[in-house]
């Protein structure tokens, strides 16, 4: 693949496992082993019960659009090549909300409440971005 010129994730001690799972096209988040709460973004404790015990649980990858915007202004050369593009907050079936892109969907068909599913996009050898497309769309 040609060299990817967009901003890359910058994994931290907390978020590195999330991105490593994404690289393998697995959407995993930390699930509290004491109260069952699924948290995102990654953290050292459960924000509900303060337990330090968690596992990287596999997510269904399905959710709905909570809100969305369309970027027309390009912040930098890379984005000038891809505007207009949609950024959304997707609420996963397991509860957490995440910031992502909506792909494989005409911009004027996007709506709040629309069912979507994860679609990983390999951008470099180290990173795949968890984006979302309309549910059931090939």
């Amino acid at each position, binding site marked *: 693949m040609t060299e990817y010129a967009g901003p890359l994730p910058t994994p931290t001690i907390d978020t590195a496992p999330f991105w490593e799972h994404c690289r393998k096209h697995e959407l995993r988040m930390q699930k509290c082993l004491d109260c069952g709460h699924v948290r995102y973004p990654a953290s050292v404790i459960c924000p509900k019960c303060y337990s330090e015990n968690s596992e990287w649980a596999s997510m269904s990858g399905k959710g709905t659009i909570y*809100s969305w*915007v369309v970027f*027309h202004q390009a912040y930098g050369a890379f984005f000038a090549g891809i505007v207009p*593009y949609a*950024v959304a907050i997707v609420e996963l079936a397991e509860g957490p909300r995440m910031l*992502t892109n909506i792909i494989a969907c005409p911009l004027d068909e996007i709506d*709040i409440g629309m069912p979507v599913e994860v679609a990983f996009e390999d951008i470099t050898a180290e990173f795949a971005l968890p984006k979302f497309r309309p549910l059931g769309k090939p």
Partner: protein
Amino acid sequence: MGSLGDKYAIVGVGHTKLGKVPGVSSIGFNVLAIKAALEDAGLTREDVDGVLVKYPTSGFSSLFSGKLCQALGITNKLMAVIDLAGATIGTMVQYAAMAIDAGLATTVVCSYGDNPLTGPPGTYGRVNSDDAAFGFVGAPAGYAMAARRHMKEYGTTSEQLGAIAVAFRKHASMNRNAQMQKPITLEDHQRSRWVVEPFHLLDCCLVSDGGAAVVVTSAERAKTLNKKPVYVMGWGQAHPAWDIAQRESLTVTGAKRSGEMAFKMAGVSPKDIDLAEIYDCFTYTALVTLEDYGFCKKGEGGSFVQNGRIELGGELPCNTAGGLLSESGMPGMLLLVEAVRQLRGECGPRQVNNAEIAIASSQGGILTTHATLILRR
């Protein structure tokens, strides 16, 4: 301690040139603004024993407040940089009053100055989190995300947001300090290019150089100074704090709890307010703040801002100098300066008749922080 309402006052306000002002550092804008505010109050550097400053958005080094004090020739008892983005403005005045009440200082200057327009490039488009990998960059997008949710939940329209931009520009046309003074129409708003949909360009505040400052002291001392004191009747703060994707609601902001606290402390209600200076980094910010303060019901902000209600001569004149949308994009201190000037009766053609009580909001991040001040003459 009992209620601090009415015990402290703003006794001086000042600002630098606004707009595109090359050749002045962020320290320089703070120094010039504080100099102007002290002159307005009839005070000198010897009278000041507290300096509070908002961190410059364009970046700063540690102990920024110390460098500012050095440039001002002030050694003091109280100094701090506060990091609450735009809400720093309202909180500085609160902390100034609390510090004076606690005996830490007698006279405190609160300042913000920066040069994002002519200084370091890319201040507001800086990439600083993994969100950037999804192209989620810059200030408008988060507010646009919240506005979209409001539109879906309550049927709010882009034309209603446009009414806010038109009203504030009309006010700026009566303010010779304003960065944008040429009136606009609703059609101009609708025709302006998309930035991040649902925001047009004219939904977004300006990017500006400049500085502004206020001087806070006790009510007793205030009575001995140059200008009519403007008393701080009530204040509040509430900080939703979390990333917008994690927020419980995108359509209720910190303004709700912050406003409730301020109204309770001041012992007044929205119907007592003569004018409002509402933080308007985007049109939506002003709309949702007016709702959360209780000037109208939740979800009715769209119709509330139409038909001249928030214009001079209307039921609740808002952002009478033009706000961030038209006077200066400098985050919020000028709203406070204008509230003080209105209550002193200094505003000439844009003066609100018999203005007695004003509310000033400040907020920052992406509806992340909020502070409220209720002021009276």
